[in-house]
């Protein structure tokens, strides 16, 4: 179903799909374009023809100044677009359900929690007890479910070569399900404008073999840096992941920030802060006066969080 990769380069968009969702989106794009051509091509062809035939300087068609209606033509004019829209409506309906980002793409998908910050993403693997910043590693062929929120303004996560985007919003969670069908590297990014560093908010997605995935997780689990409320508050300062390394005192480490999960409820605590706290300019990440020492996270709430799924 997926074409083999033409090059080993990073897949930037769904024009080089790495998974079934992006592949179907590309196929649907081609289908929609072709179907719409039924209505568009007549205009593109008829415009020059009519202008030529009825040009005033040398017309070749009869002058009919009072012609204003024709039943056959009228039914074609309404009929063709109605037909095209009906066909497309059916396929739109089916595709929307088939590619529902909330639909799991396999049994027991790998659960990953995502927190959007200015201008970086934290990917939390609760089952593995680790967290990565601006890097997402997934095993090839395994269904993945992202649960997203943000601790600043609204963001939107898209890994174009694998799956489309979904908004991440404060105090709420959204979900994005996908599957990488082959090994490779893809670019993921935030597509929703979030300020000065917005254009740098990109991350790499690695789809690797199961063995490589497990080896990588083991390596991260042996890390001495832990994601706790304190280190989280430092990560929440505006800046890229590289800039965050400074405040975490790990400037000398190459590659992405890798952490063990010091607090397994960190994702829930981030969600909880907007339900129980009155945010101040000092405690709100993304605010110009944000101060990591004055931005404590509350305890996780027992009550289930608001889920966008209606």
């Amino acid at each position, binding site marked *: 179903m997926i074409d083999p990769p033409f090059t080993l380069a990073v897949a930037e968009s769904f024009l080089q799909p790495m998974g079934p969702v992006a592949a179907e989106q590309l196929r649907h794009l081609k289908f929609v374009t072709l179907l719409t051509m039924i209505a568009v091509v007549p205009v593109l062809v008829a415009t020059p023809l*009519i202008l030529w035939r*009825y040009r005033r300087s040398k017309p070749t068609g009869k002058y009919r100044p009072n012609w204003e*209606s024709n039943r056959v033509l009228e039914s074609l004019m309404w009929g063709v677009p109605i037909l095209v829209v009906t066909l497309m409506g059916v396929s739109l309906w089916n595709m929307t359900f088939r590619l529902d980002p909330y639909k799991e793409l396999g049994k027991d998908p790998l659960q990953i929690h995502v927190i959007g910050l200015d201008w970086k993403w934290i990917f939390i693997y609760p089952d593995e007890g680790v967290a990565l910043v601006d890097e997402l590693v997934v095993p090839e062929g395994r269904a993945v479910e992202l649960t997203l929120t943000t601790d600043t303004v609204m963001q939107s996560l898209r890994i174009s070569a694998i799956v489309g985007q979904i908004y991440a919003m404060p105090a709420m969670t959204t979900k994005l399900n996908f599957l990488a069908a082959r090994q490779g590297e893809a670019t993921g990014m935030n597509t929703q404008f979030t300020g000065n560093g917005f254009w740098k908010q990109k991350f790499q997605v690695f789809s690797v073999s199961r063995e490589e995935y497990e080896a990588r997780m083991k390596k991260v689990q042996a890390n001495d840096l832990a994601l706790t409320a304190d280190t989280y508050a430092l990560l929440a300062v505006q800046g890229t992941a590289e800039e965050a390394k400074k405040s975490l005192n790990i400037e000398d480490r190459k590659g992405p920030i890798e952490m063990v999960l010091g607090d397994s409820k960190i994702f829930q605590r981030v969600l909880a802060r907007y339900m129980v706290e009155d945010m101040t300019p000092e405690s709100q990440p993304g605010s110009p006066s944000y101060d990591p020492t004055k931005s404590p996270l509350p305890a996780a709430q027992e009550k289930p969080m608001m889920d966008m799924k209606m």
Partner: protein
Amino acid sequence: MFEALFGRLTWDSIILVQEFEDPNLNTFITAGAAAMIPLGGALVVALLFWMKWWKPLFEWLTSVDHKKIGTMYIIFAVIMLFRGVVEGILMRVNQAVALNGGFLSSDHFNQLFTTHGTNMIFFVAMPFLIGLINIVVPLQIGARDVAFPKLNQISLGLTAVGGFLIMISLLVGEFSTGGWTGYPSFTGRLINPGVGPDYYILSIGISGIGSTLTGVNFAVTIYKMRTAGMSFMRMPLFTWTALCTSILLIFAMPPLTACCLMLGLDRYLDFHFFTNDMGGNLMNFINLFWMFGHPEVYILILPAFGVMSEIAATFSGKRLYGYVGLVAATMCIAVLSFMVWLHHFFTMGQSTTVNAAFGIATLLIAIPTGVKIYDWLATLWGGRVRFTTPMLYLCGFFVLFAIGGLSGVILANPTLDYQLHNSLFLVAHFHNVIIPGTLFGVLAGIYYWFPKIYGFRLLDGYSRITAFFWAFGFILTFLPLYQVGMMGMTRRTVAYEDPALVPWMVVSGIGSLFLGLAFTFVLLTLWRSVVNRKKLMVPLGDPWDGRTLEWWTPAPTPEWNFAVLPKVDGRDAFTEAKAKGTAYRPIEKYEDIEMPANTYYGLIIAALGSGLGFGLVWYMWWLAVICFLGCIVTVITYAFLPERKKTIPAAEVREIDEAWRRAARESRGVTRDDECNEANQGLARPDIITNP
């Protein structure tokens, strides 16, 4: 003391001061733009003294004549278009060289795309269209003015307040960086405590009230002021689209006013409508904004469709094909436009059923839109097509708008929107409908109706070159953006890291220079035409062999429009009168005409509204309170004082009207061969028709 007087306004807020403190390319560009405001202002004042134009200026500013108000809307739009085009060029040229960082700083770029969008939608496209509607609709329905002339002036005043605020933000402070959609919580108090979002809220909030009033005004005008015999199904298509636009304005602007007000309460009084915490929810803003925003798209495009309908019929010398179908399609679009707002955020995580339903509703709009394009093509079929400037715009519209429609249908699919939302594909799409749709429509309409209002034609050669540059510049600038959008590039990025994007962005940057050239040619056309106006005069008022009532008056049209209100017994009333030879018959009896006298209400409201907005932005509470109370007092006075009228004596009307009719009867007129040269005095002789 200083703080009580000036609020949070300090010396450093003035952009020109920043240039001295921190000179670099970005502050140089902003300082240059800022300097244009005092310099331009001084130049205008000097010109007014030099030419002794103060009196005529006030004559215009206090006028309630719909033609003058329409003209002022269009002049306002052209000034704002200048700024919008320059901003667009800056952004596109920056992106052409922005691999790993261009010459613009991020903060500067963010303000540029925000002002570009806000400015182009609210202070260019809308005033252009409202200006055209003002000028044309009363003439097309055979009325002497709009239903509420003073209210019309106040609407203009409120629009000017928005323009003032967005312009003064160049000089004092900064504008929002949150995009023209201004989503919280990015524009909320915690994240963005500066003046930018306040400028944004107040400029579109205050001018939005003016647009609502315009909607009310024109809906009433079209319902109530039509001349004898002008039933609904005899109204020209442009008037139909103006009616639909008015209805859209009435229902679509209040959600915008509401969400601006609510965001303002969040920012000023610590409310929690859209905040992250305390139960606020940004999704409500997004919904409200697009409940306005989607109908707004059709507010922008429907009048342009109306212009296209008039042009297709006039310049092919033929009745409009499928009048009933076109009216039905226009109404369909107007109604459907309220049912699709959710397609602006398919990616917010709502249920699949909701997405699919709104996706299909969006597809439905393609049906009436397609029908319209087919109807215009059929209008040309069987006609005698003259390739005048408006026709060039129409041809460009057919081809380019079809591409815009295609990309619109693609984006209507939620599954594809997941990929293309927030990308440059989307940016290409809406420019693809707004430039070949709205802008081409407006420019064609200005060329078409210009001689009617000002008495002389625009130079043909210059106008054609202008049309060519717009189309060429558009193709170069925006078609590449479809490609980079599909390659994954998002909108609103000051720089990028993927070298594969560079060639496309360079083409786009070069294209934007052609758009700049096109704008220069708009000004050049106006200037050369004014200089040569003696040769371009069309005093008899019908330069294009027009079909509808507006052409049945001298050019320039007198203040009272029609000496005697015409009676209508068909769709193309003027064409029928010309065919019967009764168009310029002498009239027996003239009567005194009562017209509303000039007033200062619009000016007063504009001044007070500007003070209110500026005071609120800078926390100069005394100014805001005084201006707000002033507005209330003005409106109450306006409502209670009897309307002042001036009477134009029958003798004066008779003199002008008889002279015009006599000249028309004595003139030989021209065939369509001489339409675009000096022989055209505004009288159409029956055309010589060759049949193959």
